[in-house]
């Protein structure tokens, strides 16, 4: 959970980034702390949201998890969800959070309709909110105007936030180490069955409209889904993820930025995965591609980097799933992985492992700007774009196939 010594440097970097943002923001004193605390607040909230989902996921095989613990985590999620709802809904992105696999012991809890249905709309919002918060201070950016609109769209009354600014300020250092470590369960797709990728390659990318519909249908039975374990739900989420991107074939920067923002937390996870181990799953890498293709990405403001860097490392278990896919070597053999020397498994595995001295070590922070720079260089040309889309579509077909298999079973 908490990285090695090397990460400390990055953490200082991040703190430096936040400090820079503070300086750049300069301006009204009243605005700056608000802006910064809002950022860290939303960061923290997103982190806690992800941790909570992850907790509801991981279940001991035989023993029943404590009802009190689940109720408390549920309450936390509900509260965050209510906050996000309160802060206004941007485009309701179909991002169904993988519902917690229910404990069969809970006779009643099982049949409950999903209380997290709205989370689909809510989840991408924090990232979207981050963009407006971060964009104004830095240099002019093609995304600024639309995000300016976005910022107008969400009034985000800070008074309704739970954490006072003072706590966030002092927690700033802590939130820096809080945020990156937890994984994003809904967005790290471990397809339970490794799909036949070569066949997927051949099949054309079919319109993905039915996919969101099916994932929507999945939502009402989210909490009661016993048949669909976490991997399949995650897969569905990933499908929805990728689906949303492809349904907007000619993405304007505006439409893509929220997608980007929503994907970036998820993608950073698989992104890092794919970077560190060359043979990382094709699914993760495929999701990486649309991010690569955005020319605006490398010029994202530091806040954006903070956003990505805040994304937690992917959990160890999904990376285990993803390693089954065989297309990695074929597609990404030319990727330079030299700069990544940490294993996301150890960082994420600590979530489930005992964290005895955990608090002493700072969590790993993604070398986001390095990452993006490396990405920008090889993939700025149009040709990679085409090839980038290709594995993306492959991923879609593969996920679609998985869903068909699941629905059929």
């Amino acid at each position, binding site marked *: 959970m908490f990285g090695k010594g090397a990460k400390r440097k990055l953490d200082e970097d991040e703190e430096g980034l936040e400090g820079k943002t503070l300086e750049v923001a300069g301006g009204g004193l009243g605005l700056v702390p608000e802006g910064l605390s809002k950022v860290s607040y939303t960061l923290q909230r997103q982190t*806690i949201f992800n941790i909570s989902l992850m907790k509801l996921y991981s279940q001991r095989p035989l023993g029943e998890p404590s*009802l*009190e*613990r689940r109720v408390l985590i549920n309450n936390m999620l509900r509260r965050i969800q209510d906050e996000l709802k309160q802060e206004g809904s941007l485009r309701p992105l179909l991002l169904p959070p993988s519902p917690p696999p229910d404990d069969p012991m809970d006779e009643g809890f099982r049949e409950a309709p999903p209380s997290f249905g709205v989370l689909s709309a809510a989840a991408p919002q924090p990232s979207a909110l981050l963009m407006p918060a971060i964009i104004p201070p830095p240099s002019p950016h093609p995304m600024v105007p639309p995000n300016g609109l976005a910022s107008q769209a969400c009034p985000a009354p800070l008074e309704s936030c739970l954490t*006072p600014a003072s*706590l966030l300020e002092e927690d700033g250092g802590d939130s820096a180490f809080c945020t990156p470590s937890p994984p994003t369960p809904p967005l790290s797709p471990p397809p339970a069955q490794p799909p036949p990728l070569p066949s997927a390659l051949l099949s054309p990318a079919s319109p993905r409209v039915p996919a969101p519909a099916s994932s929507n249908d999945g939502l009402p039975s989210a909490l009661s889904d016993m048949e669909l374990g976490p991997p399949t739900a995650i897969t569905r989420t990933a499908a929805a993820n990728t689906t949303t991107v492809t349904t907007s074939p000619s993405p304007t920067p505006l439409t893509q930025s929220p997608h980007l923002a929503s994907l970036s937390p998820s993608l950073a996870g698989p992104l890092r995965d794919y970077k560190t181990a060359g043979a990382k799953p094709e699914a993760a890498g495929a999701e990486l591609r649309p991010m690569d293709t955005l020319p605006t990405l490398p010029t994202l403001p530091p806040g954006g980097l903070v956003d990505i860097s805040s994304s937690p490392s992917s959990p160890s278990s999904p990376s285990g799933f993803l390693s089954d896919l065989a297309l990695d070597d074929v597609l990404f053999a030319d990727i330079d992985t030299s700069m990544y020397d940490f294993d996301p498994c150890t960082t994420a595995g600590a979530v489930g492992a005992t964290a005895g001295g955990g608090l002493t070590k700072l969590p790993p922070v993604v070398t986001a700007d390095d990452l993006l720079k490396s990405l920008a260089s090889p993939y700025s040309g149009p040709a990679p774009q085409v090839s980038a889309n290709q594995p993306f579509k492959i991923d879609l077909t593969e996920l679609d196939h998985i869903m068909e298999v699941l629905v059929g079973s």
Partner: protein
Amino acid sequence: MGRGENIAHLVQPGRRQKTQQEPLDVDPLIIRFLRTFREILKFVLFSYTVLFGALLLARTTQQTRVSSSKSRARDRYPLSEPLIMAGAGGGNSDVQWCFSQVKGAIDDDVAEADIISTVEFNHSGELLATGDKGGRVVIFQQEPETKNQPQCRGEYNVYSTFQSHEPEFDYLKSLEIEEKINKIRWLPQKNAAQFLLSTNDKTIKLWKISERDKRPEGYNLKEEDGRYRDLNTVTTLRVPVFRPMDLMVEASPRRVFANAHTYHINSISVNSDCETYLSADDLRINLWNLEINDRSFNIVDIKPANMEELTEVITAAEFHPNQCNTFVYSSSKGTIRLCDMRASALCDKHTKQFEEPEDPNNRSFFSEIISSISDVKFSHSGRYMMTRDYLSVKIWDLNMESRPVETYQVHEYLRSKLCSLYENDCIFDKFECCWNGNDSVVMTGSYNNFFRMFDRGYRQDVTLEASRENSKPRSVLKPRKVSTGGKRKKDEISVDSLDFNKKILHTAWHPLDNIIAVATTNNLYIFQEKLN
């Protein structure tokens, strides 16, 4: 009347007539005797008063001199015990705690089944019961004080060990039912045998622990080893007699109270009437009769009709120590509800609700989770109750519902670490708390094998550590300190170097003496007050 007549009286000389004196008004003998007796009585009373006053004076001076030798004082002056205890509070600088014993394996490799899950003294303090994750109950007995070492209280040695619960498998739900002992509660002793209730997640058992030190010998039909005798060899008849044998302690299950709880049992509490007890799980509380094991009454049910709306669970429950109709239960939202069973059969509607309004300065994402109460304990007097949430210990007066009368911060330095504690699940740890014998000091556990004592009277607190390093016999425990600021003094521990795997969740205080039992992960430490 002639002059002569009178003169006759006058002129007659003569001897002076001895005027007959007025006869003394002599009372009858009995009255005289009673008067004397009254005098004697007065004298006696007076002398007794003088003596009694002298005696009192002697007693008070003796108390102050021999204040530390509690056992002796207790034996000779039972009334003076509370005074002594009040003077020697836990956090008071007078009291020093020293190591007495440690039970359990020494090696760091902790077997899962050896993790201690509950610790409880019995009502006299002579017996100490521990339950572990493997379903076993181990009872220690205090050795009687020896004459040659009156200053040192007896040691606790193993008295009985038995397997209380076995792991079960719920085939209907395809789930394993852990055999971990969640709670042990002793019953007040009525006869020679001891009784205790032990519970795991689903089943409560009443155990009888009895001693056997005699056995019958001399049966006619059986040999000593149990084989039946050949009837041809029986030539005479004899009466079996009891002969002494080595002490044997037997534990036998007398009642099994099963199948009454859908959710995990978290508390049991014996009523002061010694006939009933309650068992509480996450959503319901049941009332049992100790004699009847196939029927229980549900007295609290907070399960919502739609489980999706579930936001609050019951975390602990306890009967009032003196009033047999009153009990309290705490919730995961930080509220305590006091219920009176006389009001109605189903006590869903509480009589009193104790809740402290949230401090707006300390609000965070984790406010609700850290407000969840992990333990509630009545004071011995029954006037106060103590609750333990994640960061603090609160003492409530039963007459005031709006806020606690005292709040003690156990480890406030963890407030800034709540996010990571949430991540590694430490924020869900259930710490217990306990009162000392006269309700002047409260104790609770923390991380890094630290435990804290708060003296209510002297407003002092101390942090001590239960570790093998301090395990020299009768070595005094040194107070520990966690450094919160940047500057770390010598001997202080920084927050970041705390070991969150070493947590003290279960502690118990002897009901009469200053002896405490503190359970680390798999070891049981017994500390005593330092005696001169």
